[in-house]
C-alpha cells in the first residue's frame, strides 16, 4: 500500500499549482465579481492538456489516472472554484461517458475536440422538477426517421451558454420509468437548441449556469449514446466520477481557506501579538488541516477505486463527496471567523471561498443523496 503520490503525480501537481498561481489567482476575484466565464483560462488549460486529462492518448488526451485528475481539479479549484467545476464537468460528466459508452465513431468525432478544448462540455440532466429525483425527468426524445426530436427544459446546467458538446438526457419510452431514459450527444448548433436564462447565484459566479430549452431539437440518430433506455445508468455512473471531481473541488476550496487563514493569522496583530499565537485560532487551524487531509485521502481512495475496483464505486465516491464538501463548508466558516470583520468583506479571498463552498454540498447529488447512496450500499 502506497500512501504517497508518485513522481509523475507530483510533477503534475507542481505544474498545475504553478499554472493556477500564475494564471488564475490574479484574475479569480475579478471573474467572480463580474460573473465572467473563464474563457481565456480554459484556453491556456487546454494548451497544457488539462481539458483532456482523462481522455485516452489515442483520442488526443493525456490518459491520466483518476488520482492525477483529482490533483488537477484540487489545484485549479484552490484558486478558482468556478474553473474547477467547469473542468470537472467537462472531463467527468462529458468526456468520460463518451469514453465509456460511445461507439468508435462518436469517440473519434468528439473526444479530440473536447481534449483540445475546442468545445467545452456540459451535462444536461437536471430539470425544474427532476433534481435529486432524476428519474422524474420530462424531456422527451422521439425517433422520427433518422433523427430524434427532443423537447423539454433543463436547468442548472454548468457552462450551459458556453458548451459546444452536451450530454442530454431525455425520455424515449415513458412506460419504462427510469429504464426509458436515453442519453444523447448534442451540439449547441443543432436546430432547436436554445439557451435560456443564466442564473444569478450565491457563488461560483464565473461558472455560467443556465437553463436550456429544446424545441423540436433535431439530433441525428447516430448521436444516441449507448443504447435506448441506458440513459439513467449512464447518468448515475457518470455522476459517480463527477462526484470525485466535486469532492476534489471541495478539497481545493478548503485548502485555500486554510492557507489564507494561516497567512492572515500570522500577520494580524491583536492584543500585541499575532492572532496565530492564540489557542482559539490554533485549534481552528488544526481542525481544518486535519479534516482537509482526511477528505483528500477519501478523494484519493475513491479515485483509486474508480481505476481499480471491479464494477461501481458509488459508495467510495459518495463518501468522498459527502465528507469533502462538508469539510469545505466547515473550513470556510472557520476561515471567515479567523479573518473577523475583514473576512466578511469582498477585499478578502475567504469571502468568495465562503460563497463558493456551499454549492459543493448541493450539486451532483446533495449531501442527503450521498448519505442515501452510502446507506444503500451498507444495507443491501
Amino acid at each position, binding site marked *: 500500500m502506497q500512501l504517497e503520490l508518485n513522481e*509523475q503525480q507530483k*510533477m*503534475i501537481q507542481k*505544474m498545475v499549482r504553478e499554472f493556477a498561481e500564475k494564471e488564475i489567482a490574479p484574475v479569480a476575484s475579478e471573474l467572480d465579481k463580474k460573473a465572467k466565464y473563464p474563457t481565456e483560462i480554459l484556453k491556456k488549460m487546454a494548451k497544457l*492538456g488539462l481539458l483532456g486529462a482523462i481522455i485516452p492518448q489515442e483520442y488526443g488526451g*493525456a490518459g491520466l489516472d483518476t488520482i492525477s485528475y483529482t490533483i488537477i481539479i484540487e489545484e485549479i479549484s484552490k484558486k478558482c472554484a468556478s474553473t474547477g467545476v467547469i473542468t470537472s464537468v467537462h472531463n467527468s460528466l462529458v468526456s468520460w461517458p463518451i469514453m465509456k459508452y460511445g461507439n468508435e465513431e462518436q469517440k473519434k468525432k468528439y473526444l479530440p475536440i473536447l481534449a483540445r478544448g475546442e468545445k467545452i462540455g456540459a451535462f444536461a440532466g437536471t430539470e425544474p422538477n427532476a433534481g435529486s429525483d432524476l428519474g422524474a425527468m420530462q424531456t422527451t426524445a422521439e425517433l422520427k426517421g433518422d433523427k430524434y426530436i427532443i423537447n423539454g427544459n433543463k436547468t442548472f446546467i454548468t457552462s450551459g451558454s458556453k458548451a459546444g458538446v452536451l450530454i442530454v438526457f431525455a425520455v424515449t419510452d415513458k412506460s419504462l420509468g427510469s429504464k426509458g431514459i436515453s442519453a444523447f450527444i448534442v451540439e449547441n448548433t443543432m436546430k432547436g437548441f436554445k439557451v435560456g436564462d443564466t442564473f444569478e447565484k450565491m457563488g461560483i459566479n464565473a461558472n455560467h449556469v443556465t437553463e436550456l430549452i429544446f424545441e423540436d431539437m433535431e439530433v441525428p440518430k447516430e448521436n444516441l449514446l449507448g443504447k435506448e433506455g441506458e440513459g439513467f445508468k449512464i447518468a448515475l455512473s457518470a455522476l459517480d466520477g463527477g462526484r470525485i471531481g466535486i469532492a476534489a473541488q471541495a478539497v481545493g476550496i478548503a485548502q485555500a481557506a486554510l492557507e489564507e487563514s494561516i497567512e492572515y493569522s500570522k500577520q494580524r496583530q491583536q492584543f500585541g501579538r499575532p492572532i496565530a499565537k492564540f489557542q482559539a485560532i490554533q485549534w481552528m487551524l488544526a481542525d481544518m488541516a486535519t479534516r482537509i487531509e482526511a477528505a483528500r485521502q477519501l478523494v484519493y481512495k475513491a479515485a483509486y477505486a474508480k481505476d481499480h475496483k471491479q464494477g461501481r464505486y458509488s459508495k467510495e465516491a459518495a463518501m468522498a463527496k459527502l465528507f469533502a464538501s462538508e469539510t469545505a463548508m466547515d473550513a470556510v466558516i472557520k476561515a471567515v471567523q479567523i479573518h473577523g470583520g475583514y473576512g466578511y468583506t469582498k477585499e478578502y479571498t475567504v469571502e468568495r471561498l465562503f460563497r463558493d463552498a456551499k454549492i459543493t454540498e448541493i450539486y451532483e447529488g446533495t449531501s442527503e443523496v450521498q448519505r442515501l447512496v452510502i446507506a444503500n450500499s451498507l444495507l443491501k
Partner: protein
Amino acid sequence: MKIIVCAKQVVDASEMKIDPNTKKPILAGLERKVNDIDKNAVEEAIKIKEKHGGSITVITVGESDARERLKELLAMGADEAILIPADGDYNVITELLAAAIKKIGEYDIILCGEASTDMFSGQVGPRLAGLLGIPQITYAHTLTVEKDKVIGERNLGDKSVTIESTMPVVVTVTKEINEPRLPSLMQILGSANKPIHEWSGESLGVTPKSMVETISLEGVSMKRKNIVFEDASDENIEKLVDNLLKEGVVG
C-alpha cells in the same frame, strides 16, 4: 545546433527562515528546486532549438536527488540530462561541468543562468568559458542566434551592451530574457522516457577541491526605528518629511 544548459539545484529561498537566536538560516527540511534563472536558460535553449533544430543537454552538479528536478527540465523540452553527484563551491562545480562538457565534445552554445539564487556569485558561466577556452556573453537579456554567430544584449544596469560572438560560446542569461514555460501533461508523461545519465568526477578524471571556506552564514537583522505619527496633521506630515530627508530615504 547542440545546446548545453548548466542548471543548479538550490534551496527554495522564499521558504527560508532565520533562527532568531543564532541568526543562522534554517536549511533543514527546505524544499529544493531548480535555480529560477537556470529555467530561463532552459527556456532560451528550447526557443533556439525550435528555430534551428538540434538537441538540448542539461547538466547538473548536485545531490543525487536532483534527478526529480531534472525531470522537470526534461518535461519543459530538454532532450537528455547528466547528473554529476557532488557538493562544493563554484570551483568544484565549474571543474566538473567543464570536464563533462569536454567529454560531450561537440557543442555550439552553453547556456547558464547569470547566477544561482542561493549564493549569487555569478562565477560559473565566466569560469566555464575560461576553462573551455571559448568566448562568453554574460548577463544577456536578449539573445539572437544565427547560423554561425550569436548576438546578445548585456544588461549592465545603467547601460546595455550588444556583443556578437562566434560559436561555441558560453552565454549567461538574466531573468528578463524570457518567461519559462510550464510543461504540458503530455510533456510530463514523455519526460519519463528521456535519459538521465549519471557521471562521477572520477569517471571524468577530475577531483576538484573547494577553494572557498564559509566561515559564517547569518541573516542580516533589520532594526526598525518604529517612529509613529499619531495622526495625519500638517505638522506631522512635515515632521515625517523632515525625518525621511534626514535619513536620506528621499531627497
